[in-house]
Structure formats: C-alpha cells, structure tokens
C-alpha cells in the first residue's frame, strides 16, 4: 500500500492535512504583539521553541535525579514516565485544550472543502508537535542518564526514548479524545457549561495524580527510592510504558512483555478511537458550537462588582467578569488552576493542627506554608493569563481613550486581591479561628499574610506587566511563567513568611510595627510600580 493510499484509507487528504498542520504551527510561532516592555512577544520559531523547552529541560533534570536515586530501572522508569504523562496532561489541560475545543479556526476554514477528519487530524498534529517538543525536552536528561549512568547502555536509552514519546502521545491523545468526545456527544448549547465542569474535574484528577506521585517520591524516599514491590502498580498505564526499560536492561519477565504489549494496545486503541469516531462530524459539531447560543441571557450590569464603581477599575472588573463568563479559553484556564488552591489548602491542613503563632512562634516554620502557597500561587499564575486573549485586537479601546494604562494594569491586581485573595483569607481565617487562642491573633496574622500577598502580587505585576486581554494567546508561554511564579511563591511562603512570623508574633508591639511596616511597604511599592508602569506604557502603541 502506498503512502497516499494509507492516507486515503484513513479518510485524510494528505495535502490538505499538511497545509493545515503547517499553517497552524506557522501561525503559532508568528503570533506576535508588543508587551509593556515594548518587546515583540515572539522572537521567531527557534527562540520560542527554546524558551518552551528550557523549562522542561530543568524539570527533566529533576527527573534524571530519580535514575540515580532509584535502586532499580523499572521503579525509576515508572516515576519518570508517570511524571511525563502528568506534565503532558497538564499542558493539554491548561494550555492546549483550545487546539481541540476552540471553534475559531472553523469560522475561517468551515466554508472550505476540508473534510472533518482531515481537519481533526491537522489539529491533532498541531498538538502532537508541541507534545513532541515537550517530551524531547523532558526526556533529554533522563535518557542521557539511562544511557550513560551505569556504563554505556544504548538499548536502555532507546527504550527510554520510546517510553517517553509513546507515553506522552498516549496521554495527549487520551485528553484530546475526551474533549472531542464531549464535542461529539454533548449538545452544542450545553457544551460550554459541560466543558467547564469537565475541566474542573480533570484538574482534580491531574493534580491529584501529581500529588500521589509526590507522596510516593517524597517522605518515604530520603534520596533512595526502594524498588516497587506491589503488583498494583501495574494498574498505572505509566508502568506499562516503563516496562520497555525493564526489557531494555534484559529483564524479560512475562509481566513486562504483557505490560509493554498493553501500552501499545492502549495507544493504538486511543488513536483508532480518535480517528474512527471522534473525527466524525467534528468540524460540523464545532460549527454548531460556534453558531449556538446558550439562550440569550440578559447580563445584569454592575451586579457583584459594587466595589469597583468607576473609571479604569470598573472597566477592568467588567471585562474580567465578562471574559470569565463567556471566553471559553480564559474560563477553562481559570478552572484548570483553581483546584491547585484546594490541594494546597488540603495538604497545608494535613501538616498538623494550626498552631497559634502568638503562642508558638516557631509554628510557622513547621511547614504549613503550603497554606500560603495557595493564596499566593493562584493570582500570580492568573495575572499573566489575563493579559492574553483571542480578542486582543479589541484592546484598541485602551489606546484611543484617555484611560491611564498604569491604572488598567494595577486594576487587574486589585481585582485579584479583592475577588480572590481576600475571600480566600477570610475562609482560612475562619478555619484558623478554631485553632487559635484569640480572634485578634487570627485577624493580625491574616492581615500580615494579606499584606505579604499583596506585595507579592505587586512584584509579579512588576515582573510581568500587561494590559488586560490585550496580547495574542501564545502557545508554550505558560511553563516559563509557571516556573518564575513558583520561584517567587516558594521564596515568599517557605522563607519570608515563616521568618516574619517567627520574629513578629512574640510581642504585640512587634506585630503592630510589622503591620505598619508592611502597609508602608505596599504603599511605597504601589507608587514605585505606578511610576514604572507609566514609563513602560508611555511609548506604547497598539499592536493589533
């Protein structure tokens, strides 16, 4: 059978597929705009690819350490492949879901003679391109470690390459199949709502998987990972791909052969499912989705936004709320991050009872900084997301009106503070009030955390300033931001807050002085930030 015949058999027009896939990748790399620093937000394909890859190479370095820590190859492989699969799922969840569910492209090519299957295959290729890039970056150092760590073992290296690529592809296709199945089986008018719930549920599954993995590697290991003994591990599909490595070092036990075979069956089944069923009428369903209305609903202007009554603050609040309600990409991004908060809260509370730092000043050093991570991480990740939108061309309105651009940027921070940080802290404060000896202690402690949280947000805005929904959405931008934000958040929650707590709570005078100092610091930072933003935005021009 010739190559073309295979394509025909699959129902895919090869030339159209190639044209669409190539155009999609070109478009992604060419997506441009100017950020507040006046830089083009895309520096060409090579730079973009390198930027995306660097973060994953660093993650791969941590995974490569497992190769040395684990007592046997299969155990390390299970952990590394699991991590790679979770990371891929996370990427699809947070960043690439739009490749599958966004009806935007359909509006452009819907009227062209492209079959549904060809269109879906092109979108799948677009996604797999990024997943391949990601798998290469994550796997680079672990593969080198397997190949060279215990003498030159090329067969093991090749097995690791196969395991990482195929497991990543499986993870991606599984996620895509789920989204595509939703598009196929859920009525277009309800799709937006259903997708939101599914996104939330998937986030819990993926973060939960990650947390389980961390549990396994973390407290039990102490730098040496004992071999996996339980046969229950073979229920984890990652272990099926990890079996390649066991076979690669010459461990030819039947369970590894069976697992390896199961992995291939899984991958082929998912691919077949995607091609055979999910592409059927895919583009037509997307078309119906884009044309459908969930029932024209009257939007009650002003409801729930009473805190921001006028000018830029009001404009930004209106926009963020509307984008969350209606912009599927933004909504799904927010919903994919939200469960992080719940996990951090859960793990923070699992560290033990919340001791009153006024009574036990050293309690803040005992590890419940995870509670702070939640309040700090979510807004920091979300603020850069708020700068991006498919409707970025509408941001001309910020340039053709006398609106203050620094005020627009700062209003996003204020929105996050009022609608996320403060409610979360009130909730945590309520929990703390059961453990603390005095309500005043809770209030003072929460005030300190709120002020530190606000200062962290100010630093984040200083590092990554952006006008609301005014930059084109860029694929691959998230990992770098995640890492940068994680560093800031970890430093604040693991070091600054505990040290502050240790120092301030022994006396009321110190507490008052610290509060006053933090208020002063945040006011000063606000002023400095405003001046900095004024400088940054004064020469800006519309890039739409």
């Amino acid at each position, binding site marked *: 059978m010739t190559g073309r015949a295979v394509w025909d058999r699959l129902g895919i027009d090869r030339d159209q597929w190639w044209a669409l896939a190539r155009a999609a990748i070109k478009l992604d790399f060419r997506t441009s705009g100017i950020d507040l620093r006046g830089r083009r937000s895309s520096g060409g394909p090579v730079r973009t690819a390198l930027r995306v890859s660097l973060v994953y190479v660093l993650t791969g370095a941590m995974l490569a350490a497992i190769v040395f820590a684990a007592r046997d190859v299969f155990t390390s492989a299970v952990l590394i492949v699991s991590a790679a699969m979770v990371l891929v799922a996370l990427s699809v969840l947070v960043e690439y879901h739009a490749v599958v569910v966004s009806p935007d492209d359909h509006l452009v090519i819907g009227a062209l003679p492209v079959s549904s299957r060809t269109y879906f295959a092109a979108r799948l290729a677009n996604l797999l391109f990024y997943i391949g890039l990601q798998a290469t970056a994550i796997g680079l150092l672990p593969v080198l470690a397997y190949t060279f760590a215990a003498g030159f073992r090329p067969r093991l290296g090749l097995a690791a390459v196969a395991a990482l690529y195929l497991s990543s592809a499986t993870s991606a296709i599984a996620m895509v199949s789920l989204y595509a199945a939703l598009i196929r089986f859920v009525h277009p008018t309800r799709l937006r709502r259903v997708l939101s719930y599914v996104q939330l549920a998937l986030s819990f599954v993926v973060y939960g998987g990650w947390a389980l993995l961390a549990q396994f590697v973390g407290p039990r290991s102490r730098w040496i990972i004992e071999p996996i003994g339980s046969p229950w591990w073979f229920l984890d599909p990652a272990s099926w791909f990890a079996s390649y490595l066991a076979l690669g070092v010459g461990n030819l036990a039947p369970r590894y052969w069976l697992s390896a075979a199961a992995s291939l069956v899984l991958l082929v089944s998912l691919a077949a499912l995607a091609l055979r069923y999910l592409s059927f009428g895919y583009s037509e369903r997307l078309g119906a989705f884009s044309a459908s*209305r969930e029932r*024209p*609903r*009257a*939007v*009650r*202007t*002003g409801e729930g936004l009473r805190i921001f*009554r*006028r*000018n*830029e603050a*009001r*404009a930004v609040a*209106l*926009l963020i709320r*509307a*984008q969350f*309600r*209606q*912009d599927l990409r933004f909504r799904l991004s927010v919903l994919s991050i939200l469960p992080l908060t719940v996990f951090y809260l859960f793990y923070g509370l699992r560290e033990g009872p919340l001791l009153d730092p006024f009574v036990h000043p050293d309690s803040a050093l005992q590890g419940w900084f995870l509670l702070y991570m939640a309040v700090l991480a979510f807004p920091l990740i979300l603020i850069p997301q708020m700068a991006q939108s498919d*409707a970025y*061309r*509408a941001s*001309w*309105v*910020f*340039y*053709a*009106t*006398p*609106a203050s651009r620094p005020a627009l940027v700062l209003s996003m921070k204020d929105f996050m503070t009022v609608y996320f940080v403060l409610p979360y802290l009130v909730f945590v404060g309520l929990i703390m009030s059961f453990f603390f000896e005095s309500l005043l202690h809770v209030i003072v402690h929460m005030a300190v955390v709120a002020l530190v949280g606000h200062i962290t947000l100010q630093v984040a805005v200083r590092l990554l300033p952006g006008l609301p*929904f005014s930059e084109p959405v860029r694929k691959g931008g998230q990992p770098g931001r995640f890492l940068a934000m994680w560093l800031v958040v970890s430093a604040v929650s693991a070091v600054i807050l505990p040290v502050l707590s240790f120092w301030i709570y022994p006396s009321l005078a110190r507490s008052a002085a610290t509060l006053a100092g933090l208020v002063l610091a945040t006011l000063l930072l606000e002023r400095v930030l405003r001046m900095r933003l004024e400088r940054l935005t004064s*020469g800006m*021009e*519309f890039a*739409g």
Partner: protein
Amino acid sequence: MIQTDHLSRSYGDTLAVSELTLKVDRGEILGFLGPNGAGKSTTVKMLTGLLRPSSGSARVAGFDVLEHPLDVKRRIGYVPESGAMYESLSASEYLELVACLHHLEPRVARARAEEFFELFGLAEVRHQRLAEYSKGMKQKVLFAAALIHRPDVLFLDEPLNGLDANAALIVKDLLRKLAAQGRTIFFCSHILEVVERICTRIVIIDHGSQIATGSASAIIRATGTTTLEEAFSALTGVRDVGALTQDFLAALEQE
C-alpha cells in the same frame, strides 16, 4: 481642529504614510479616500494615538498627538475599521466600559447609553452579549461608544460597514448635525456616493502620499471625469477597468 505637518509612518522599510500635510477645520466633514493599503487607516491610527508617527507632527483639537496624547483622546471619538470589540460584554456593558475609560460619571454614562439604544433600536437587546449581535448592530454600538463622551473630533474608519439602510440614514443625518454643531469629522470610506453627498471636502491618498484635495466637484473637474468614482480611478492608477477584468476572466479560463 486637525492639522498634520509632514506626517510619516514606516513599518520597517515600508513607508505607509509619507509626508502628509493637511488641515481640517471645525465643523468640517473631511472625506479621506484612497485605495486599499494607501495609508488611510495608518493615518487615522496616528491621529487617534494608536500608532506613533515615525516623523512629522500632528495636532488634534489643539493638542499635539505626541506631546499631549491624553488631551487629544479626551476630545476624540473613534470607530475603527476592524470593528474589534470585547464580544463577551453586553452592549450596555461595553458602553459602560468605554464611559469608564473616559472617566464619565456613571449616571451620565447610563443616561447617554439609553439614548443611543433608543436611537439605534437596540434597547431590547442591550443586555445581550455583543457576540450575539449582527455586524450592523455591533457597528451601531461602536458608533455609540465613539460619541458617548461628546467628542469634538470624530474619526470614522468605514463607519457604515454592515449598517442597514435605515441605520445608515440615521448615521448620515447625525453626522451632518454633529458637523453643524461644530464637531469635526474625519471620514474614511470606500462608498464614494456617501462621501460625495456628506463631505464638505475630500483628500485622496495613494501609496502613503496625498494626491488630490478639494471638494468633490473640484476633483471631478480637475481630472476631466464625470463622477467621483471615475476621478478616483483615474487618480489612483486604474485606467481601464474593463480591460483589467477581461484579462482576469481570461486567466481564470486557462487550464
């Protein structure tokens, strides 16, 4: 109210607008014409503060666009050619957003918005998302957003795009009345009949440079043609439309 002096803008090596010098007085409706890619939108973007000129200067409503951009923006209204707006908002939210960016009192903004909705027949659907609007309805909202702060100068880039005949009539009448009130209107359009009917003066640009200026009748006279359409074609290089289309059709027929 609008004055440019050797205004230029380039994108890399491409000169989009070259040494444009023009003056538009209070109460004047200037028709700004040119073929696609001639530099009309770039000029408007420079005058509205969306783009910075590469060289030259411009004053709008008495203020230099580079030195006092905010003072300019307080006094102008703009309907962009792209029609881009945040479609997740409802029409009333969009007008509220624009009013907030102009620092209007919420009470005043609400009252003016209601008037626009009545005028354009959008009162019933003002709480529906813009994504659910037709192109013409969105254009009406953009028009309302450009006027909500009562600007002295209006920049309209293809403002009649998608409007139905009734709405177009309202807009044209409105423009005449706004001009009679002393407001200046910078009107970019490809609909030459409308330009001929409502504009007091016309400027034609091509390849970024001004190639003609004057009233419609003066331009027609100067080119020795009988209509503004013919004059425009003669000035912008399309000499024989019939021969061009014939060549195109012949090329299509080729195997």
